[in-house]
């Protein structure tokens, strides 16, 4: 006998409930702590209504997306990518400038950030591009170039807003999805190494230039700092590092460990490009921005400036101890010592007012969320769906670590929000849409 069940019953049977539960828990903690954080502000009610409306829109989108066949996005990746570009360009033209960045497009009473939707679109586009037999992916340089061109298109437009924090997630998504798609790990390592050189040199030199007494102790550091801004010392640095690479290669060769000559050559080329990019980055990122990025290494350098947020955030979290100071009673939160408390630093509010129990629960909920995403990625038969799940997993993992690491003083202040928890409509909606995609993949994991 054939039993018919309602559409709702069907949906609820196929959905990944543990995942939904984790998201629901994060949304609840988020709402409660945002309410506490905005309560000392003039109109806490408005913030709450906005956030609840955004969550509702996001949940509707989630349900709709989970019911929608995600294969729809497979057919025309070019169109999809073009749409995201239009959004990113539109914001540069008609966007509202808030806090010095043109990130918002106003649509009547609502305004949203195209960046947030663009990154979901980017995951779909990338999944479509990488959805080809693995042998075509493994060592295809052409594919790598295509992927990075797509990513740089987005990142460049986002940097023009300028919104540095919004670009950071792209390398994480790209590297995660490429690895899963089967690109040779050595390529990925080379890319990471290149990135480390390009970003590391300006950051390190900024860090050292903040400590004149240390520089005087070690004259080498002067040379290092000078090399970040290009010129002769950059060439000298390149020469020295290339010499070291070849000397090591030769040394290892003497010990009967034969490494093909292409490797050291390639490595030196990466260093050369890295140093060149470092030079560009040094010019492109403004001085105060670089300072903001390195001050987390020792907030004491600038306790009233760039280090202030970090110190206050750590004091807030630490002073919460095991059980927290109680909702609405965190002195750091309620008396305005914590900047950006309801958005980027919402985790400090949780740490201060709800204590270690709830803060660690939030961290574990994210761990669970990411784990579910990867489980879905493994269980799904369809390669496109798998890649979407991996992209979404990397997105959440990156945002969670980047935000909590920043709040805890482990990572630079970059302005990455905590998904589901931070105040901010577009971010909540896009995060919920990402979960919707995940559910849509999960829904059809045995179909494709």
């Amino acid at each position, binding site marked *: 006998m054939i039993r018919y069940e309602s559409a709702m019953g069907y949906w609820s049977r196929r959905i990944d409930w543990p995942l939904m539960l984790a998201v629901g828990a994060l949304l609840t903690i988020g709402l409660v702590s945002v309410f506490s954080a905005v309560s000392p502000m003039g109109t806490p009610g408005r913030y709450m209504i906005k956030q609840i409306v955004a969550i509702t829109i996001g949940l509707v989108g989630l349900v709709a997306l989970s019911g929608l066949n995600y294969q729809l996005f*497979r057919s025309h990746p070019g169109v999809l990518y073009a749409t995201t570009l239009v959004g990113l360009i539109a914001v540069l033209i008609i966007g509202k400038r808030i806090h010095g960045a043109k990130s918002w497009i106003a649509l009547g009473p609502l305004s949203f950030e195209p960046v947030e939707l663009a990154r979901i679109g980017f995951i779909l586009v990338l999944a479509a591009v990488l959805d*080809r*037999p*693995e042998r075509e992916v493994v060592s295809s340089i052409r594919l790598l170039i295509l992927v990075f061109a797509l990513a740089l298109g987005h990142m460049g437009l986002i940097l023009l807003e300028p919104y540095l924090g919004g670009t950071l997630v792209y390398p994480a998504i790209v590297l*995660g999805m490429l*690895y*899963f798609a089967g690109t040779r790990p050595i390529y990925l390592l080379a890319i990471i190494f290149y990135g480390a050189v390009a970003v590391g040199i300006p950051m390190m030199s900024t860090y050292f230039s903040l400590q004149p007494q240390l520089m005087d102790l070690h004259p080498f550091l002067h040379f290092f700092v000078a090399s970040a801004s290009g010129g002769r010392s950059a060439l000298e640095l390149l020469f020295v590092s290339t010499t070291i690479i070849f000397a090591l290669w030769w040394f290892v060769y003497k010990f009967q460990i034969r490494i093909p000559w292409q490797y050291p050559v390639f490595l030196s080329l990466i260093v050369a490009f890295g140093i060149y990019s470092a030079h560009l980055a040094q010019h492109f990122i403004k001085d105060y921005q670089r300072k903001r990025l390195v001050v987390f290494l020792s907030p004491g350098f600038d306790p009233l400036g760039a280090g202030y947020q970090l110190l*206050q955030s*750590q*004091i*807030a*979290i*630490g*002073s*919460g*101890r*095991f059980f927290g100071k109680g909702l609405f009673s965190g*002195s*750091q939160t309620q*008396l*305005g*010592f914590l900047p950006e408390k309801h958005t980027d630093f919402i985790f400090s509010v949780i*740490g*201060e007012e709800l*204590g*270690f129990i709830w*803060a*660690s629960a939030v*961290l574990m909920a*994210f*761990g669970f969320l*990411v*784990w579910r995403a*990867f*489980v879905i*990625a*493994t269980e799904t*038969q*369809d*390669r*496109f769906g*798998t890649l979407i799940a*991996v992209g979404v*997993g*990397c997105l959440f*993992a990156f945002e*969670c*670590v980047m935000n*909590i*690491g920043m709040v*805890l*003083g*482990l990572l630079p202040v970059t302005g990455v929000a905590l998904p589901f928890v931070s105040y901010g409509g577009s971010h909540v909606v896009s995060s919920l849409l990402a979960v919707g995609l995940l559910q849509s993949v999960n829904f059809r994991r045995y179909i*494709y």
Partner: protein
Amino acid sequence: MAFLPSASEQSIRAGRARWLMTFCACFMAICFLRLAYLQLIKGHAMMQASENNHTQVLVERAPRGRILDRNGDVLADDQPVFVALFSSLGLTSGDYQEALVHLATILAVPSVELEHRLAAAVRAKSMLRISDRLTRPQAFRILQDRVHLPGVSITVEEQRYYPQTTLASHVLGYVGQITDEELDQLSDQGYHSGDWIGKSGLERLYDPALHGQDGGFLIEVDARGRQVRVIRHISPQAGKDLVLTLDAKLEKMAEDRLHDTGHPGAAVVMNPQSGELLALASSPGFNPNLFLPLGDSKERSQLLSDPDLPLYNRAIQALYPPGSVFKIVTSMAALEAHLLDPDERVYCNGSYTLGKERRIFKCWKPHGHGSVDFLHAISQSCDVYYYQLGTKVGPEAIEKMAKLFGLGSYSGVDLPHEKKWPLPYAWRQAHAQHWQGGDTLNYAIGQGALQITPLQAVGLISTVANGGSLWQPFLVSQARHFGEPPERLGNPKMINHIVFSQHSLDLVREGLTEVVSGGTGLASQIPGVALAGKTGTAQVPKGKDHAWFVVYGPVEAPRVACAVVVEHGGHGGSAAAPIAHDLMALALGFQKPDQLAVPRGVESD
């Protein structure tokens, strides 16, 4: 369209997922550890940091405990003073620029200095105590111009005040602003920067009891420094009142009499049966009020540069050769060693010749005392008698007796900075220095080798008076706090009890009684009361000798012991004994000691 994965592809995919998951989990684990570190390990420190962040303390100083004499006479008191406070809350630098100049003229300080201090307070968004002691006119001018002086307010606080000015100044000591070093050591005991703290005397030693517990307002401020609310107000807890064993009248008489001599000196009066100090005077004295903010700075600097060192407590810090006072020790040593026959006579022709070198040691009386027995020798203080006695007894026995009497060690009085002189024989032994026969002779008559403080001298005569008990002298008997039972601080404490034979004690006491009734100490005689004393004249390299007199009485039941020293006063019998007379008479209950019939002082040793 889809590429269905083979089984092996499926397992490759699972492996990659596991790698990625592990990678993410590592970062999350680091975040977790950091979270645990901040909240669980550093939690307490962070809690304090957040407390400091949002709270500000406005200190309200506790009134300092008073110091009273044994009859309740107030020696150190508190008086209300005006304190000017500056609060930067809600002010910008423009607001107070004008006020600054105005304030500087009222307070008569350079406006640059004031600006420097105020700017620091504005930056730190904190409260500042501009001045701790405003004069009445200054306070009223500030109150009148309140409108033009934003942020400045006046409060009334209790501050130290010594109503009897110089009386017992060395015992009381004085208070001053806490230094950075003191703050480093004491900040965990509730002291704050800007506190007043005892710098010398009892003020210093008993500061924890006198200081009390500061109170104040704990104010919550927000990140911009605006006051949000008063979290709580802690009332200051007044310090404890100290009740001394001193008798203010006796102390006053001691200080006046010493002052009248025109020489520096010291006098100590003690109860020989317990160690209670009834008077501890050092002259010249000083006015401790000068060290308070309203004190005259010119007078203060004069005080500090005075060659007579008025800040120096001679009663416990000055070391003088005991002179003939030491003959009490030599006598006891000889008697206890059974080397002295009181009836044996020695002929004094005015000098004594020692050893092969035939070194001459003179008696203080140029032509000698003639034939003297023990009683005669002690009452006339014959040096020649004691030269031969010293030679017979030897330095070890003398020194052993001196040690039993507490010489060479701290008396343990409850005052800071007490001084002592090492026992000379043992010291020379320990430092491999030669001890000659002549040193023994000088030791026996108390010249040269050993030096003692007036407090040690009163301990010595008290031990004879009470029959061998060495009591630890003390000044503070109780601490009182309003509404609480008094707390006993000083109790009689016996340091040492020497078992003398009754025979030796009787003989020495008889000799000392003879000193007053018919010997060198005639000037201390009080009609109707038998006293026992000993004069001393300590030779000094330059100027007149130091005059000593130690005495106790009444002989039958000693209640009072006294030691007086007058620097460069000349003979003990003429310079020190009259002072001791007045002190003994007052202490023994004669209301007008100076009107008692007194024999004239004797110009003798």
